[in-house]
């Protein structure tokens, strides 16, 4: 017999203990003519489904398995209880997480579907039996659930191997016998590895002797960890980094033999044991797993007796039709009939009912939610209340969502009020059962930064050096590391460019590109199954403390299981909060539900068209504001268009300019064939939406909508030239048969081909547009409430809270500073909706406990002075210090000068008061009656705080991240005006193409992908009068990149672009850092940071100081 099958193979999914890429493994095994290949990653099946699919596609038989940690077999109790001579060295930790050092390795292979389900169960029970216990498979569990599983005795880190190496023959024998008893006769093998170490012959012959004595079969493996020999370096780096040690890593491997060796080489290693190699083929022939991919498995839905899931769905949809469409229209009735027929044919009724059930629960509890994505194309989802955009009014096509030609699991994503999302999740667990629900995993892979850190740590570099090397690397894939270092302006002086010193490090980091680092948890993906979920997939605890599947969303889809995205949308929370605040002020009946509004209020559109959109959902980014100035939205379909236009695809295809030109009549609307005109009516002849591709194919070539969707999908995927030619021929022939001229048909196809890949799903945009309109309406009519709600739900949206606050101030809303007697934890609205009181929650060092204590004591009586505050709230010193520094205790108490103490005086008193409280306790009112504070001469006697404006502003920015006193550049107004700076509000009045000089604080810097492949930086700056959009092209970016990255405020010179076609922006040709100083020359710090005061520096603050901190400020 010849040939060999590798049965012990680790891929990169052994997380830091495997360097083999799945594609490379499979490709190499096929190249070597192997009939099968196993995948036995540590403690899980993380890569199993994709391996299964890829291997089958490559004509290789996949054998799924895992290398698990199993409890000690030969002796009872813990290893440490044994006499030292009988103890074995426990395996190193890498790749085993919580099981590290708690048991021995054992290789398990799946024979059939029963074995697969048993292995999933074994792994799940080992992982999730308890969050505190190590993930070790017990022998009892293994014995009970070994049906369909073949066991191999494991590597030298297995109990048998370790005992042989330690010369403990009795222990090896005992362990072998006990392990063998866990499996069916003939299903347990003694695993032999000849890893070409000095110990290998002794190891192999020892195991063979035992196997002969116990009459157990032997099998040869090579503990594969990388595909080619040359990849051993990556494996060493990964295992060292994974174990948190420097090279050579936890195993101190002496050689590089763990590669996928050809059959001939393996047989040579076991020349006198051919039966061990033959056994690999025999095992491979016994492992014939069929996962039955391609089917669908829905969770169980309870329906009344005599009903079916379809009948229940149909009834609810018809009820919804009556509710949503008044009067009923023939179009709506026909559409519903059509959709229900398709849903019945595809057998997806249960899925719709599951989603509806969850949405119904949320609505019954007042949890705001809305569907998104292509689900908006369906009238059924609209009628069930899952989505809110009318598919008939906005011409949304069902076939884009569910194509009867392609039986694919539908995907309905729903956004829920993020603050109350946990209630929905709890309901899902309760309703479907804990054993039937798990979260979807994501596989976190190496970025350039992660890869550099991994290699640097493995090389044993100091933490400081590791940080220095990874800092300022952009978030790009590791394989682009060298290119980024060579071309990105911010990397001009990057230390990694020292090839002599870091050449090897950079090379290895590049090779780690895309390597899985660890398992993460999907933001909101839940798997719901009818059968217990651990019969489908292994489960484990995620870092977040939830049970997560070992499979990601693609694996779940491949298995045909239902995955629901329960996403949290902060804008929903903000809208709910704003409505609540507004109703509290003007009465519950006076404020309508924003989602139910008819989107036709001209005031709302006027606000959007003036680019005054800070805070509005999906409409606030600098690109959207620029687009608004050019598009001048007039109705709801314009909002849909705006959301769709400002996307990477349409941007890359440069759809915006023709769209705008045609809309404003600058360019005539033209289509290759008149039949397209109706389909492209709402986008002025530009193919903007994916739904339009379907409509055009239907109109020009007579495709059914289902055929048209298949055509669209075919066009958007990477197709071979032949396949594309076939699609092309079919389209043109059918168009010509319908009487369309060949030229027109060719031109239509060309346009479809060009735009199909870039078009945006209109249903998704329409679903978002409902939320956008609601937020815009609230901003128009209840601006203070809306702003407070947005601030209470930060982080959200495009801008920082600082800019949101500044924007509110520019709109005439008063910003009241935080104060312990008036502020709550959250931002509140005062003065009949004219002012916002800053909440205490954002103040540095504040805790939930302290906020609750302050709110509780406010209800009793106001705080009298600092001592009273400390006594009644027991505020921690760092929090009290922060409150003093931001002015939350200004004006309280009195000094011997007969005025309230300044902040400096309070800060000086604070340690003494805390000491007294610590000594005397807080009982009684008089223990803190200290002598009045001793007065000092204040810096600024005119202000109650005694602090200068620059110091107040710095404190605000440092401790709340807001500029409450004024905009930072306001302090430097004189200097800036002397330098000839034009303010943002005046730019609209300047001529196009004039040279301007502007100044602003950086709000955002983006470098999106551009069609030409060049890097362009879009800077959003803010000055005291508004927002500035600055474009920095590649040549200027090369000079100014470092300035942009390391500073926060800039002085920019450039040419103003101010026209209808392109909007207002400054094309920069010079970017200089600007250090904000007051008239007296005091610098102002612009970032949140770790404060240090009389109580010493705070530890673990919200943000570390950046480069432009005091050092940079003073260095000028």
């Amino acid at each position: 017999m010849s040939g060999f099958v590798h049965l012990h193979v680790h891929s990169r999914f052994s997380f830091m203990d495997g360097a083999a890429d799945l594609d490379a493994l499979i490709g190499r095994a096929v190249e070597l003519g192997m009939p099968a290949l196993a995948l036995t990653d540590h403690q899980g099946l993380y890569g199993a489904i994709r391996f299964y699919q890829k291997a089958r596609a490559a004509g290789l038989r996949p054998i799924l398995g895992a290398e698990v940690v199993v409890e000690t077999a030969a002796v009872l109790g813990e290893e440490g209880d044994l006499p030292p001579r009988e103890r074995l060295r426990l395996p190193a930790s890498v790749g085993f997480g919580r099981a590290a050092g708690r048991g021995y390795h054992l290789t398990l292979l799946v024979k059939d579907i029963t074995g697969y389900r048993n292995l999933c169960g074994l792994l799940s029970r080992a992982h999730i039996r308890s969050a505190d216990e190590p993930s070790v498979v017990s022998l009892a569990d293994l014995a009970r659930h070994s049906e369909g599983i073949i066991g191999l005795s494991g590597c030298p880190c297995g109990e048998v191997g370790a005992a042989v190496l330690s010369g403990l023959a009795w222990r090896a024998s005992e362990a072998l016998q006990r392990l063998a008893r866990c499996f069916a006769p003939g299903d347990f093998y003694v695993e032999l590895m000849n890893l070409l170490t000095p110990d290998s012959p002794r190891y192999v012959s020892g195991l063979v002797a035992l196997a002969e004595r116990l009459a157990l079969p032997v099998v040869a493996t090579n503990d594969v960890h990388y595909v080619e020999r040359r990849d051993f370096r990556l494996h060493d780096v990964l295992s060292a980094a994974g174990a948190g040690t420097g090279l050579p890593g936890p195993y101190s491997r002496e050689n590089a033999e763990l590669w996928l060796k050809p059959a001939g080489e393996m047989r040579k290693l076991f020349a006198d044991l051919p039966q061990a190699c033959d056994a690999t083929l025999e095992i491979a022939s016994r492992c014939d797993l069929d996962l039955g991919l391609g089917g669908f498995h829905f969770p169980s839905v309870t329906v009344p007796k005599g009903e079916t899931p379809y009948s229940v769905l149909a009834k609810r949809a018809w009820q919804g039709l009556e509710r949503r469409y008044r009067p009923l229209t023939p179009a709506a009735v026909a559409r519903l009939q059509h959709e229900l027929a398709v849903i019945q044919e595809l057998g997806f009724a249960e899925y719709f009912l599951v989603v509806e059930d969850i949405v119904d629960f949320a609505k019954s509890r007042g949890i705001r939610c809305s569907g998104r994505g292509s689900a908006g194309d369906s009238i059924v989802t609209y009628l069930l209340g899952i989505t809110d955009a009318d598919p008939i009014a906005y011409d949304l096509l069902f076939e884009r969502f569910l194509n009867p030609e392609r039986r694919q699991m539908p995907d309905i994503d729903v956004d829920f009020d993020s603050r109350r999302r946990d209630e929905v999740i709890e309901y899902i667990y309760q309703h479907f059962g804990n054993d039937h629900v798990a979260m979807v995993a994501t596989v976190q892979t190496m970025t350039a930064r992660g890869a550099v850190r991994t290699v640097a740590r493995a090389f044993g570099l100091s933490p400081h050096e590791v940080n220095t090397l990874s800092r300022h690397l952009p978030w790009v894939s590791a394989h682009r590391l060298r290119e980024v270092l060579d071309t990105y302006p911010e990397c001009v002086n990057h230390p990694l460019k020292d090839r002599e010193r870091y050449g090897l490090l950079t090379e290895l980091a590049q090779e780690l590109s895309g390597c899985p680092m660890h398992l993460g948890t999907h933001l909101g993906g839940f798997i719901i199954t009818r059968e217990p979920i651990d019969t489908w997939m292994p489960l484990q605890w995620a870092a977040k403390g939830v049970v997560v599947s070992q499979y990601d969303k693609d694996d779940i889809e491949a298995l045909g299981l239902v995955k629901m995205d329960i996403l949290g949308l902060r804008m929903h929370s903000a809208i709910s909060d704003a409505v609540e605040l507004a109703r509290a002020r003007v009465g519950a009946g006076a404020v309508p539900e924003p989602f139910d509004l008819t989107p036709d209020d001209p005031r709302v559109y006027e606000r959007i068209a003036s680019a005054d959109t800070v805070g509005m959902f999906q409409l606030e980014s600098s690109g959207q504001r620029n687009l608004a100035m050019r598009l001048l939205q007039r109705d709801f379909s314009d909002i849909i268009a705006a959301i769709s236009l400002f996307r990477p695809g349409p941007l890359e295809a440069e759809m915006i300019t023709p769209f705008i030109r045609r809309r404003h009549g600058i360019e005539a609307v033209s289509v290759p064939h008149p039949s397209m005109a109706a389909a492209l009516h709402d986008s002025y002849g530009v193919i903007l939406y994916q739904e339009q591709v379907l409509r055009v194919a239907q109109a020009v070539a007579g495709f059914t909508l289902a055929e048209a969707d298949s055509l669209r999908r075919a066009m958007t995927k990477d197709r071979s030239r032949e396949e594309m030619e076939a699609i092309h021929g079919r389209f043109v022939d059918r168009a010509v048969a319908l009487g369309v001229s060949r030229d027109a048909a060719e031109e239509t196809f060309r346009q479809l081909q060009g735009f199909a890949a870039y078009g945006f799903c209109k249903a998704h945009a329409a679903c978002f547009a409902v939320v956008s309109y609601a937020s815009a309406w609230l901003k128009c009519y209840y601006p203070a409430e809306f702003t407070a709600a947005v601030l209470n739900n930060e982080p959200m949206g495009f801008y920082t809270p600082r800019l949101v606050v500044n924007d509110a101030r520019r709109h005439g809303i008063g910003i009241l500073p935080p104060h312990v007697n008036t502020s709550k934890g959250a931002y509140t609205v005062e003065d009949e909706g004219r002012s916002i009181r800053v909440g205490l929650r954002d103040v540095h060092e504040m805790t939930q406990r302290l906020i609750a204590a302050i709110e509780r004591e406010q209800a009793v009586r106001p705080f009298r002075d600092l001592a009273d505050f400390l006594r009644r709230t027991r505020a921690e010193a760092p929090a009290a210090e922060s409150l003093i520094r931001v002015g939350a205790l200004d004006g309280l108490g009195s000094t011997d000068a007969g005025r309230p103490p300044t902040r400096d005086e309070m800060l000086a008193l604070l340690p003494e008061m805390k000491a007294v409280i610590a000594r005397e306790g807080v009982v009684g009112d008089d223990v803190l009656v200290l002598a009045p504070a001793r007065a000092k001469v204040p810096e600024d006697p005119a202000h109650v705080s005694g602090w200068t404006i620059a110091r107040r502003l710095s404190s605000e920015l440092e401790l709340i991240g807001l500029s409450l006193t004024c905009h930072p550049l306001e302090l430097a107004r004189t200097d800036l005006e002397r330098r000839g700076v034009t303010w943002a509000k005046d730019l609209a009045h300047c001529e196009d193409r004039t040279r301007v000089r502007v100044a602003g604080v950086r709000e955002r810097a983006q470098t999106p992908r551009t069609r030409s492949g060049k890097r362009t930086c879009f800077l959003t700056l803010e000055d005291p009068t508004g927002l500035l959009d600055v474009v920095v092209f590649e040549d200027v970016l090369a000079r100014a990149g470092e300035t942009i990255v390391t500073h926060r405020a800039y002085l920019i010179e450039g040419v103003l672009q101010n026209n209808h076609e392109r909007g207002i922006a400054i094309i920069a040709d010079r970017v200089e850092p600007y250090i904000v100083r007051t008239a007296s020359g005091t610098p102002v710090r612009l970032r949140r940071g770790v404060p240090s005061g009389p109580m010493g520096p705070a530890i673990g603050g919200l943000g570390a100081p950046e480069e432009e901190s005091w050092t940079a400020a003073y260095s000028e």
Partner: protein
Amino acid sequence: MGRNRAIKEFDPARQKGQPLDLFTGRESRLPVVLELLKSPWIVRGSQVAKSSTASAGKRREEAVEVVWDGRKASPVEFVWHDRRYRVDALVQTWTVERSWWDLRRHQSRRCFRVLARGGLYDLAYDRLADVWLLTGIVD
């Protein structure tokens, strides 16, 4: 069947028909020595004393001249201190790949433990320097 078959099946009561006729001459002694060397439960002095200061094994790094047999993939003789050693048997091979991240300490070798002139010698082919070394005389 394992490598110890010859020893395990030796029956001193039988005069003929033994798998190996033990210790009757050089030819018959060699397989027995090899079997013993490969035996898992016999630990050699050189393996007990791993440190370089230990005296049980003699470790050295000397360049030697080696005659290589490509067909057997094994050294067939080597010259050490002007004396020619014919390799009677290849006892064991292993590989070494150490400290690849440090150019000064990097080692990449293929090692051969051979029986020659009644002694056990460790020969190593250094892939980086392309030279043969005698790395040990053991036991």
